[in-house]
């Protein structure tokens, strides 16, 4: 499993399929809510097509419903998505060299979920074809199921909807745990990231957009300072794996 070397477009589609499953209930519900907020099918689908950011889209719906000024919704969108600066900066260290325009295209497909899948690949470098595969299947699911949600205007059975709300988090755990095994640095990074975020969340110090950013950067810096003397790399585990292959 961990030994598969993911490089091709179709391997990207396959690796991204758990994201597609996770997006299914979230996008379906978004389509439904958009309809009840008074958006047309075209308007709802266009938001998923052009913006492609779950949290911001849900936020936009609730702000639209309460009559908040459009420019304020745009500002909020930026704040919610500012963490992607960190993710794509991190990803730039991990992807293979490619023409700028090509990177500018698949950068559009970087979400919390696609980032997690790409960044936790065991290969030293992520190929452009693989990145396109992951991005495309996730994006298709998001846009497609937004339209379906608006069209059928009905929810999944309640018990299934409840159960599926765990999908994306289960995926994050499924991506994290293999890297944690035998790598104390990864365990520490995740634990401190979680601890800082919980502290900020329960103390209401920052909005979610900022608190994820602060928790991530805080943990990444603290742990790097702890390890800077021992010169242990976070990729230690993956380089061992590659050596075995």
């Amino acid at each position: 499993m961990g030994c598969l070397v993911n490089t091709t477009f179709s391997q990207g589609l396959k690796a991204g399929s758990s994201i597609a499953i996770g997006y299914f209930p979230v996008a379906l519900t978004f389509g439904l809510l958009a309809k009840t907020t008074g958006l047309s099918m075209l308007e709802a689908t266009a938001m998923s097509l052009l913006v492609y950011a779950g949290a911001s889209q849900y936020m936009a719906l609730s702000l639209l419903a309460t009559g908040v000024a459009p420019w304020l919704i745009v500002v909020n969108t930026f704040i919610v998505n500012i963490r992607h600066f960190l993710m794509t900066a991190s990803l730039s260290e991990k992807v293979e060299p490619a023409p700028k325009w090509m990177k500018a295209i698949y950068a559009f497909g970087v979400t919390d979920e696609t980032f997690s899948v790409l960044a936790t690949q065991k290969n030293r470098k992520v190929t452009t074809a693989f990145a396109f595969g992951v991005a495309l299947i996730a994006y298709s699911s998001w846009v497609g199921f937004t339209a379906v949600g608006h069209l059928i205007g009905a929810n999944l059975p309640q018990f299934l909807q409840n159960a599926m709300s765990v999908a994306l988090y289960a995926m994050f755990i499924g991506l994290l745990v293999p890297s944690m095994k035998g790598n104390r640095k990864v365990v520490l990074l995740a634990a401190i990231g979680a601890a800082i975020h919980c502290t900020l969340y329960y103390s209401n110090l920052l909005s979610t957009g900022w608190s994820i950013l602060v928790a991530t950067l805080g943990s990444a810096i603290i742990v790097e300072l702890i390890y800077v003397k021992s010169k242990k790399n976070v990729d230690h585990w993956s380089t061992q794996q590659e050596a075995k292959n």
Partner: protein
Amino acid sequence: MGASYWWMLLGMAIATYLPRMIPLTFLDGKELPPIVSGVLRNIPYAVLGALIFPAILHIQEDMFFGVIGVVVAFALAFIGLDVMFVVIGTIAALALYSLL
């Protein structure tokens, strides 16, 4: 919704795209100081911790729901199942829990 909706969409699209595009496209091939590059390589694991907690505990009113999700997903991932089966297995466990 009128024209203002479409202007808002355009603004949202730009506000979302720029943070995704600028670092990935323009940090390309730049030799960063080792400490910066080390911090950047730490980001995926730090962000996963922050994305999972505390959000997973609050996916439903019943916090036990999220707790079961955490335990089942960790267990399935720990025994080495592929991500897809971790996702499906956890959904199945919680579907069972909400039917009981």
